[in-house]
């Protein structure tokens, strides 16, 4: 994240994160300050360029075009303050899936891929002017994040690889080790949407991916030239930098307090502290230039291109940038497209600038603030007007995760029917989990008395994020205040029991109405009025569903 412009003779650097202090490294000066020695002891080749921090890491390759890779640690750890060069090499090959062609005769799968590429490097598919993908599509790239602990999701600082060229077989980025340790993680979003839909309109629609993926990609980290713990000056004598400027940005309030990722949302009105304020800080040398500092914000091409619509940050060394809520129409109307996280995330790239007495402008390296997955899903509640404090509290970060029910009957694949599946991010509230377990136990009791074979019941629809609920359901736009959006509802399959579906529907009804379960239930007449047949049973635990008189 730091770099040195030898021609101009000044250092520019940026740091993301509230607790990060980047030592300024001035070499070959009388009051020379060096980076602290590595707490990991002497590194192999410490202070010398080109030595690895660990064995090369084989980046997982998705089997198909619609699959991504969940966060996975590379095993590579960069010591604090050490600057490393990270390199990813290798190509992925995309071939048409014969099974998709067999199920959906030509012209499916179509289009072939963004830009009609079949061999793509680590930069993945880049937005190209391709109307078949709504003018552009980004996916399949190797994303590398640096975190300060061992806990996924690791969406902290994201490495900025170059070149951003889909045909390049090698891309590189620099990274500075964060204290207490800088662990590198790899994530890969799905490549692009292309599939053959089967059984559309039935309770069990499936899709066959259009492409199979093969290939190999390797990630390695090496000590950057001239950087890191050695602190040497490559070509003495080095003139001292006349001006330095270092920008930092961090989320305020609960984001920085609870989230190590420096993430944020546009929620500001009812949360204390607000989550929509990003605090920017610049360190300038000499300090008398501080009042002249200005800030620029640009869209992050890796993510949703919205920053140009935001008001600019204030000026000065301590500035503020306020994130404004957008609206529903920016979100993907298509479920498969919506599976990719990166295009939905809000992300801002900031740079700080200062003009010296000679009229020269000095600019910091860019620093990026990006919503992580949890805040991206929470952003949906803001922009869709869900989560009124009276009816349903605005969800906290802790509400989302891959949570199973205490009894172990239902896992993430059962409970999560939304767009955030890799990794699983969904909301499952205690009232629902306890209620479902209560229904399970009661069903077991009834079946035992009736001498019926008992295998429990299955959930056919669980959590739905607002975008998925409003845009992606088969019936079209659905603006209802569904309990599915709050982790409080489940659709139950009725066709897999030792009795007719209509009979099991009634069994579910008596289970739902039992004391201790206290669920709301969609009456049969309501479902039949719209669907002409009973195809599922719906239970939920929204407010006003209790059993009190």
């Amino acid at each position, binding site marked *: 994240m730091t770099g040195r412009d030898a021609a101009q003779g000044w250092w520019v650097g940026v740091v993301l994160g509230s607790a990060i202090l980047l030592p300024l490294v001035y070499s070959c000066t009388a009051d020379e300050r060096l980076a602290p020695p590595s707490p990991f002891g002497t590194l192999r080749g410490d202070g010398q360029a080109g030595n690895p921090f660990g064995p090369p890491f084989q980046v997982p390759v998705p089997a198909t075009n619609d699959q991504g890779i969940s966060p996975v640690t590379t095993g590579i750890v960069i010591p604090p303050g050490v600057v490393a060069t990270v390199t990813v090499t290798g190509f992925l090959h995309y071939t048409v899936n014969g099974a998709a062609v067999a199920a959906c005769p030509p012209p499916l799968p179509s289009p072939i891929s963004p830009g009609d590429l079949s061999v793509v490097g680590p930069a993945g598919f880049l937005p190209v002017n391709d109307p078949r993908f709504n003018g552009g599509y980004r996916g399949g790239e190797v994303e590398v994040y640096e975190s300060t602990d061992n806990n996924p999701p690791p969406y902290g600082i994201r490495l900025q690889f170059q070149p951003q060229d889909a045909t390049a077989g090698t891309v590189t980025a620099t990274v500075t080790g964060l204290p207490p340790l800088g662990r590198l993680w790899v994530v890969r979003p799905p490549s692009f949407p292309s599939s053959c839909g089967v059984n559309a309109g039935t309770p069990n629609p499936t899709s066959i991916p259009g492409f199979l993926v093969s290939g190999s990609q390797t990630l390695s980290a090496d000590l950057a030239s001239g950087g890191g713990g050695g602190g040497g000056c490559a070509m003495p004598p080095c003139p001292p930098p006349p001006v330095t400027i270092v920008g930092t940005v961090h989320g305020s309030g609960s984001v920085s307090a609870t989230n190590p990722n420096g993430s944020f949302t*546009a929620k500001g*009105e*009812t949360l204390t502290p607000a989550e929509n304020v990003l605090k920017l800080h610049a360190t300038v040398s000499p300090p008398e230039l501080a009042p002249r500092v200005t800030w620029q914000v640009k869209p992050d091409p890796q993510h949703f291109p919205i920053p*140009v*619509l*935001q*008001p*600019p940050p204030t000026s000065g060394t301590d500035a503020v940038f306020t994130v*404004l*809520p*957008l609206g529903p129409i*920016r979100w993907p109307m298509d479920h498969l497209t919506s599976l990719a996280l990166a295009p939905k995330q809000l992300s801002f790239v900031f740079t700080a600038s200062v003009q010296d007495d000679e009229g020269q402008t000095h600019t910091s390296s860019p620093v990026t603030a990006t919503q992580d997955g949890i805040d991206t899903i929470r952003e949906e509640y803001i*922009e*869709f*007007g*869900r989560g*009124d404090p*009276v*009816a349903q509290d*605005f969800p906290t970060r802790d509400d989302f995760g891959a949570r199973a029910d205490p009894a172990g009957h239902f896992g993430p694949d059962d409970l999560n029917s939304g767009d955030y599946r890799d990794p699983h991010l969904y909301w499952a509230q205690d009232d629902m989990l306890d209620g479902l377990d209560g229904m399970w136990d009661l069903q077991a009791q*009834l079946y035992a*008395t*009736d001498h*019926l074979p008992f295998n429990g019941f299955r959930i056919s*629809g669980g959590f739905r994020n607002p975008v998925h609920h409003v845009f992606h359901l088969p*019936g*079209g*736009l*659905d*603006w*209802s*205040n*569904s*309990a599915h959006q709050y982790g409080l509802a489940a659709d139950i399959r009725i066709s897999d029991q030792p009795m007719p579906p209509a*009979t099991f529907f*009634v069994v579910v*009804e*008596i289970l*739902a*109405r*039992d004391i201790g379960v*206290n669920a*709301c*239930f*969609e*009456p*049969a*007449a*309501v*479902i039949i*009025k*719209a669907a002409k047949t009973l195809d599922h049973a*719906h239970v939920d635990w*929204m*407010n*006003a569903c*209790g*059993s*009190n*008189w």
Partner: protein
Amino acid sequence: MRRTSLTLALFALTAALTATPAVGAAQAPAESIAVWTQQLQSGTLADRVHGMGRLAGLNPRSLPAATQQAVVAELSRINEALENNVPVDGATALGAEGFGEYYLDLARTARSLGTPEANRALILSVGVSLGIARRAARQGDAAILSLAHMIDQRYEPQGALETLGLAWFWADSTGAPLSDASRVVIVRALFAASHDPSPDFSAGVGAALRWIGDPAFLPLAQAITDQAQASGNVFLGYYRTQTLPALTAALNKVSPLASAIRTRRVVGLLCSGTVSGPRQGACESLANELDAAIAHLRAGRTRPAANVLEGLAHRAEDALAIGALTQDEATLIAGGARQVIARL
């Protein structure tokens, strides 16, 4: 100056992108509520779903009176269409998910309102939850005929039957009024449902008897349990694990005298309106003998009471044999007498 202009332009662009205001956004809430209310009152079904979905995210009791009335009116409109099997324009296009969620938005909001008008509208929504069924049951006589009509129309009979049982229990346990005419409707509905093999009737009568709280109905519950065992009814487990234990517990909570008085009340209800013929004779005899048994019990004369009750049970069976009583009536009366004897 340039920054100010840029800022204004950026805000304008942001507003243009924002099709729906976020919660708490700088927009007059009353205006939005007014729009949503208008959609609910006169829009297409898709419009109504949108308006109701937004209103359902607000505190129902903070809604303007006109909005509250619109919610109740729309719930009633949908309920009547469902009960009378009249098409609802747009429901099919909306799909089961969308229409079902819309219905729940209406019912939940109405329940939170708690106004007399909302409570009345909720009677036809007793299929949604036990809580709504209890809200309807508290209304006593005002709800009974509507519930009976639902059962006749085979519209959510499970919830309607369960609510009848709850209404009986609410009146008995709180002293709230419930007329004999309503009680007769309840008993007749339970009798009819106990012979209907469809799942929702089987479940409904089991749930009604589970909640009714009156041990006089334990013989009927035992009879439908025996019938379920013989016929392989899948709700046998429910009867055994929920219905019978609930009524047995109710029986164990009362004295033999109180149990006899409960059966006497049932005899009076069954015989109400009977003015001639063998049925009238049977009814008079049964009532008189039960009164005599109750007098013995009050005086602590258990042996004479048991003798009278045994005779009463035989008389009920004789009345069944000559067609003066139905099977269900005889079951309740004879069974009621014998369960008192068993506890003397």
